[in-house]
Structures are given as structure tokens and as C-alpha cells.
């Protein structure tokens, strides 16, 4: 059941990215291009998603446990630390260069576009590079898996 629920949520999420235009890098870049011919569509995507998600998460938080699992992996991290700031900056630069963030990039694999395949391979390499780098950091406790769950 957990697998079917996850698959269905992935489908709905993918449909949302598709309908909203988030899968089109040209549209994403037009939103980010505030000094050019600005397309505010993605602000509407964000507002609509939050209009559903804010009451939805409030409701989910009230339940003691999810319907199909023993426990919720509700994020616990709260501190605004250098990794958050540096990581988000690097991500933003990469996003602005091509107009693809992880969701639309993975979804676009369906088109078998060579550029997308190369982008996703590089993205996976970047993620594994972070995993390897974190593995040799003595000061950071080995909570990589927890950190991944902690934020999303």
C-alpha cells in the first residue's frame, strides 16, 4: 500500500509540474528574468501550492501517525546554518543557468532528451560528491540519511 500511495503521489506531483509549466525551462527562466520580459506564472504556482499545502500540513500535523506508516518523518531541523545558506546559493545558481530543478529534471527524463539525461547524471554526481565529502568531514556527525529526511 505504501508503494501504491507513493506512486500515486508521484503521479499527481508530476501532473502538477506538467500542467503548471514548471517542466519548461524556458518558462522557469522567464519567471526568474525579472529584469526582462517577466512571466509571473510561477509565482501563481507557488501561491496555489501553498494555499493547498498550508492547511493540509496543519491537518497532517494534528494526526498522531500517517495512515499507511508507523511514523511521520516530520522535519526537525530548525537552525539557519552555513550549509543551508551556501547549499541554497549553489542550487540557485545552477537552477538559474539551465532552468531545471530536481523535480522537473527527473520528470523530463520521460522525453529521453540527451540534454536532460546529461543534466540528471551531473546532478546525481553532485549529490554523490556531497555524500562522499560529508563522509570525510570529521566534525559533522554521520546523520546524512536523517538530514535527507529532515528537510526534503
Amino acid at each position: 500500500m505504501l508503494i501504491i500511495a507513493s506512486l500515486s503521489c508521484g503521479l499527481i506531483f508530476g501532473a502538477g509540474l506538467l500542467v503548471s509549466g514548471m517542466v519548461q525551462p524556458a518558462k522557469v527562466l522567464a519567471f526568474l528574468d525579472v529584469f526582462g520580459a517577466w512571466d509571473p506564472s510561477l509565482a501563481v504556482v507557488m501561491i496555489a501550492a501553498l494555499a493547498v499545502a498550508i492547511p493540509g500540513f496543519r491537518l497532517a500535523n494534528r494526526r498522531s501517525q500517517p495512515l499507511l506508516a508507523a511514523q511521520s518523518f516530520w522535519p526537525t531541523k530548525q537552525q539557519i546554518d552555513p550549509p543551508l545558506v551556501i547549499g541554497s546559493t549553489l542550487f540557485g545558481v545552477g537552477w538559474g543557468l539551465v532552468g531545471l530543478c530536481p523535480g522537473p529534471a527527473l520528470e523530463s527524463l520521460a522525453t529521453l532528451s540527451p540534454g536532460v539525461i546529461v543534466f540528471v547524471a551531473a546532478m546525481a554526481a553532485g549529490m554523490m560528491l556531497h555524500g562522499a565529502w560529508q563522509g570525510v568531514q570529521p566534525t559533522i556527525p554521520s546523520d546524512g540519511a536523517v538530514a535527507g529526511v529532515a528537510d526534503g
Partner: protein
Amino acid sequence: MANFTPLSAAIGGGLIGLAAVLLMMLTGRIAGISGIFGGVLQFGGGDRGWRIAFLAGLVLAPLIAGWTGHAMPSPRLPASWTVIVVAGLLVGFGTRLGGGCTSGHGICGTARLSARSITATVIFMAAAIATVAVTRHLLGG
């Protein structure tokens, strides 16, 4: 604002929010794509089944749309392979270091009213806007 599409943006955004809420209510997981994908890539990492199922659904969506006559157009990407590879590396490393991306911090974290996620969202939005401003208007790309 010639290309402004508020209706499809609102419907699509609503679906994204609905998927994130359903995933939390049903499975107790956060719909953060970089976290889900990163977990699949982790050596010796367990808990892979639901992650792979979610990503399969994500890729299946445009295929189903294609079968019903709404094929997804191939995304337009920069001509330079170097730019594509550098951007992919930055997105991969950056989202893992920062603990999330547009979905995990931007939608789920912001919806939980987490100051950490809202800060991340403001930073990656600002960095992306600055990058587009430099590449399109300063360098004239």
C-alpha cells in the same frame, strides 16, 4: 507579461500542493525531490521502495499525458554541454548541502512555516534571479 498563464499555473500548483499533503498524510514522508532522489543514490541507504515508487510516478505522468494526446515537449536547454554539466553538479551538490530544493524547502517547508525553509527559498530564488540577470543582461546571453 505576454506568456502569463495564471489558470494552468493555479491548477498545476494546486496539484503539487495536494500531492505533497497526500504523501505526508498517507506515508509520513516529505515530498522533497532532491531528498527522495538523494536517498535512492545513497550507498547502503535503506527505505528505497517508496522513493523509487514516487519517482516512477513522476516520470510516468508525462508518458500517460502523451498517450492521451498531450505529449510533453522536449525541454529547451542551453547549447553548451559545459553549462548543462556545471548546472547539474551545482543543483545536485547544492540541494544536498542545503537540505532541500524547490519542493522540499519551497513548498513543504514553507507550508510548515519553517523559518529555515523560508530562508533557503529566499536564498535560492535570489541566487537564480541574479544568475539569470547576469547571463541574460550583463553577458547578453
